[in-house]
């Protein structure tokens, strides 16, 4: 897969068919990968594809000027399609390399599983159903599916729906919806005051670094409402009330655009379970509007048009 990607990406740059290649390179921290964005052919040797390609790269073509060759997993491809629907990127400006995806490793889960910081893991390789690790110099094997992101258990489109080149053969979904929605179910089961206290505690931690917003491909407003100060919608400084308000409004703004890529939660430095809000919204949009994000690039965005059958209970 990797070699094919390097070869095809090299051709695109050489023939001037794209201005940039956006893929994954080796990270500078154990196990991690990092976005590799380049217009130089010699950098392409660094491209990697492995079970640690966590970043959703679909945000980059919006910012880069010109044509882009981009690597996407299933969830990322739906973000990209959603951006096409919102006219933030044009399909004809993209060459899409699709990765049929079996899931990506959640490094926090992995650390929990091995009971040690990720720093101790010097090497990891997926071998069949297992992940083989080198921890403090000794070999350790754990089931791969025990350490993938929660979103991956609920992934119905692990093979990108929109691509020019598919790197590998299609993957059939391996669903465990219950597991994917476990945390959300636990929140649903709480009574309202309990749930309120839970979120109050979570958002007391927020430091307003805007990591969640800035990594999110669905957060593309030129000026976010939190940065508007005439009038001011929420305080610029962190209080739990304003932090919660910020995140709830963000949740509404990305409704119908969020592909459950989980980047917000992964980015949050203080460990707020943001996916529990975002994924819940994905469910709501599905239930109310029968809309699944990023399926049809030619369909209008769900909230920018009206259907006679749209639910209107709230108007009663």
């Amino acid at each position, binding site marked *: 897969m990797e070699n094919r990607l390097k070869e095809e990406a090299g051709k695109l740059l050489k023939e001037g068919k794209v201005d940039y290649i956006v893929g994954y390179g080796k990270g500078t921290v154990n196990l991690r990968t990092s976005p590799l*964005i380049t217009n130089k052919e010699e950098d392409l040797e660094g491209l990697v594809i492995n079970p640690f390609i966590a970043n959703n790269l679909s*945000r*980059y073509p919006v910012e880069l000027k010109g044509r882009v060759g981009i690597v996407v997993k299933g969830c990322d491809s739906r973000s990209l399609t959603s951006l096409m629907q919102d006219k933030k990127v044009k399909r004809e400006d993209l060459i899409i390399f699709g990765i049929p995806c079996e899931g990506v490793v959640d490094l926090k889960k992995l650390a929990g599983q091995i009971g040690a910081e990720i720093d101790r893991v010097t090497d990891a390789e997926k071998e069949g159903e297992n992940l083989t690790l080198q921890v403090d110099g000794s070999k350790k094997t754990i089931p791969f599916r025990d350490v993938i992101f929660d979103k991956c258990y609920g992934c119905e489109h692990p093979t990108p729906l929109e691509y020019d080149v598919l790197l590998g053969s299609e993957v059939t979904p391996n669903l465990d919806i219950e597991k994917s929605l476990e945390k959300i179910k636990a929140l649903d089961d709480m009574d309202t005051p309990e749930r309120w206290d839970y979120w109050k505690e979570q958002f007391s931690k927020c430091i307003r670094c805007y990591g969640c917003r800035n990594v999110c491909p669905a957060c593309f407003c030129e000026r976010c409402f939190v940065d508007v100060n005439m009038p001011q919608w929420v305080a610029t400084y962190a209080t739990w009330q304003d932090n919660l308000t910020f995140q709830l409004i963000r949740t509404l703004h990305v409704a119908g655009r969020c592909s459950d890529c989980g980047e917000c939660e992964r980015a949050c430095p203080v460990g707020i379970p943001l996916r529990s809000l975002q994924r819940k919204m994905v469910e709501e949009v599905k239930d109310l509007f029968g809309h699944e994000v990023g399926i049809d690039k030619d369909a209008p965005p769900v909230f920018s048009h009206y259907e006679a059958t749209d639910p209107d209970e709230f108007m009663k």
Partner: protein
Amino acid sequence: MGYKKIKKDQLKTLFNELSKDCSLFVPSGSKGYVGFDPWDGNSADFTEWYGNTTIPPKALFFPPVEAMLRFRKGEAGYEIEELLPNGRPQIVFGVRPCDARALKITDILFSDTYRDPYYLKRRENATIVGLACNEPCDTCFCTSLDISPGESQDVDLLCTDIGDELLMEAVSDKGEDLLSKMSGLSDASGEEESKAKQLGESAKEKITRQIDTSGLLDKMRSSFENREYWEDVSRKCMSCGICTYVCPTCHCFDICDENNKKDGKRVRNWDSCKFPLFTRMPMENPRHEKWRRIRQRYHHKFEYFQMNFEAIACTGCGRCIRECPVNVDVTEIIGGIQAL
């Protein structure tokens, strides 16, 4: 006073005692990230699992949000009430050598021509108890910045984990004073002393990440106009505030007034040069493009701060590398500048 020691299973008793007449902060992971939390009377086991905190101790002295004053419109104009910290003594237990140095660095800034009463009052009332690193993280590069994982002159009291016990050495008068107040201590042997030294030496060797600071000031200067370099290294950055907010030396803030017709308060909060809206309020952000903002962060740390205060505003704690969602790595950026 010489070296003292305490059994780790006695820490809980010690902490309960210390917290009677001061605020005691210890590393805790109870909130889903590691930070310095008020002692909860219970979990003193951080020596067993703790590398470093995600949020640095600067947050205890320069909090993310702080009300500076309250104002009220009265008959004869505005009445202003200054809201200074309450002056309660604080002990911060378990500060790593890099972060202790970072506090010395922010001290320089906050006690310059403008002496910041909020920060300084908290600093005066605080005793910093350091904890040497036996197992540095993969992201650490403090040794490149003249910091040793196993020793520190920047703390008041330094602890070293020698197995079942913590070895303690007073570094300052404050530390001496604290040590004399602690119960449950016994004298450490020369053997234990040299064990601590050994652990420090081996910790040093475990650190492989590095930057080269020799001739860096000139290199930084000449990199300023190298637009291509800065564009290349900034392309993947998401312009968030994570690296700034987790950095123990970053100190920029914004100030805003919250006004409710007749009264209100003036609040300051952390701010970051990575944000496109940075400094838009008083004026304009001269750094519209992302590469200019990235350049600013590294130039501030490795050039301007050094010119103004003769210190590099980075301690090699590695938090920015660890927490950045796209793995922008300061050691790569500085390495790249040295190679230009």
